[in-house]
């Protein structure tokens, strides 16, 4: 297959996935508002369209037409760059997460021309099967902190700065627990490629072999997404809205986009690492993947509706003195068991 066509088809595939992903984010926001409504015994949005189904569209239009105000004291370049960094680094991890086994046949015929889709893995249910896939995801999620830190600093406001600093301290602390919690999975799968990790769970999901790893991963993921009970960066009663305080209109929307994107990516990653990814009986793989991912997204919302916020010292205590030693213990036990069983 010739190069321009290959690039065009890859771009097409990425675009389709991105559009589906963006729609999923928009409806996750609606899902959150609906589920929180049910938890708090109220209806949630139900005016725009049946069951409020057109609410994301209305929200988008509202955000687009709001005044995009840039406060005069800000550092302009960084102020504009910060939301972009947040949104881009939130999207990028999805490039290596496998959402299905094979989505298209090996070859298709269009207008009498046979296209070999095996080139560049166009027929696979993943954009890029990189051999360091999981490290790539961690690299991108470790960059996500820049959006908040730079946004907080560039805003030139004390609430923004404090919010940004808090988030960077929180993310650096929990990245360790997050990274160590999946070492057990990597030892069992023997690969860093997410596709291979899914294939290694053919007979038994890793959640049954790594229950402690799964729990640590989920707690650390909550902290990395800065969700309740770890949403100290934007606790409204002391920091207004954290690093987002000075932002309005679409710039603010990009931060929100990043936040929900992180939730979906974290859920998809937990699905891939611990819940067997797209594997499952009867239903097609992609349905299984979406189902498992959204069960975890539901857990994210459920927790938000259930738990109060931590204090900052409690947050640091939990990260460094509870999760980190537990994650190390998990690695040790996994290593010993693997050594003795073969």
């Amino acid at each position: 297959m010739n190069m321009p066509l290959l690039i065009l088809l890859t771009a097409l595939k990425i675009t389709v996935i991105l559009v589906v992903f963006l729609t999923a984010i928009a409806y996750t926001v609606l899902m959150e508002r609906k589920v929180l409504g049910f938890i708090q015994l109220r209806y949630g949005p139900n005016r725009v369209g049946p069951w409020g189904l057109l609410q994301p569209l209305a929200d988008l239009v509202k955000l687009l037409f709001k005044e995009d105000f840039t406060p005069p004291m800000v550092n302009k370049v960084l102020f504009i760059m910060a939301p972009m960094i947040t949104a881009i680094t939130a999207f990028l991890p999805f490039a290596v997460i496998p959402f299905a086994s094979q989505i298209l046949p090996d070859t298709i015929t269009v207008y009498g021309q046979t296209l070999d889709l095996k080139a560049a893995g166009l027929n696979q249910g993943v954009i890029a099967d990189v051999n360091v896939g999981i490290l790539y995801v961690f690299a991108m999620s470790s960059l996500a902190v820049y959006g908040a830190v730079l946004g907080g600093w560039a805003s030139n406001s004390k609430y923004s700065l404090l919010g940004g600093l808090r988030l960077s301290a929180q993310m650096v602390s929990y990245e360790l627990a997050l990274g160590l919690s999946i070492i057990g999975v990597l030892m069992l799968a023997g690969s860093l490629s997410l596709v291979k990790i899914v294939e290694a769970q053919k007979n038994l999901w890793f959640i049954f072999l790594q229950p402690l790893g799964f729990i640590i991963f989920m707690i650390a993921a909550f902290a990395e997404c800065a969700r309740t009970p770890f949403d100290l960066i934007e606790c409204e009663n002391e920091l207004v809205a954290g690093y987002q305080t000075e932002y309005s209109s679409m710039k603010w929307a990009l931060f929100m986009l990043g936040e929900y994107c992180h939730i979906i990516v974290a859920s998809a990653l937990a699905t891939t690492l611990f819940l067997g990814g797209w594997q499952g009986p009867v239903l097609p793989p992609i349905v299984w993947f979406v189902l498992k991912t959204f069960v975890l997204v539901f857990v994210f919302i459920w927790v938000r509706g259930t738990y109060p916020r931590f204090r900052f010292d409690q947050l640091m205590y939990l990260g460094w003195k509870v999760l980190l030693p537990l994650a190390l213990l998990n690695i040790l036990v996994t290593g010993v068991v693997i050594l003795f069983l073969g």
Partner: protein
Amino acid sequence: MEYLFYSLAAVALISGALVVFQTHPLRSALWLIVNFFAVAGLYLLAHAEFIAAIQIIVYAGAIMVLFLFVIMLLNLRQPEEELARPRLGLKIAGITVAVLSAVLIGMGLAKVVLKPVTELPVGLGNTESVARLLFTDYLLPFEVTSVLLLVAIVGSVVLAKAKLR
């Protein structure tokens, strides 16, 4: 591939120079991050995916975040006063050192014999080969480094505790 290499190398060099020439420490730090990315791209071109990923995670993702953290905490107020102009003696000394080191590096580079690129062994920079080398040939330096890091951690704890008392 060559075009990619040269553009990445150009980005690395220019951002590296900008790190030095910025007056604001935060801007220097940000250009250093750009530099890390360009170097990670060069690693990718050499099929060292593991090294590239680690470069981003450790340097751009962790160390630079801490740098930014410190810069922001120490530099809450914008620098108001102008930077002091360097004196003539300092200027002459700086230029002399720069020219001398440029000459020395140039002489070293002139002795390098360029050879045509041979095909690298498959999987040279990937996780498995790096891990194998670390845990066989380089086991002792690897473990000694970990002890060194442990000493640094213990030292920082001691310093932090000493202040509390």
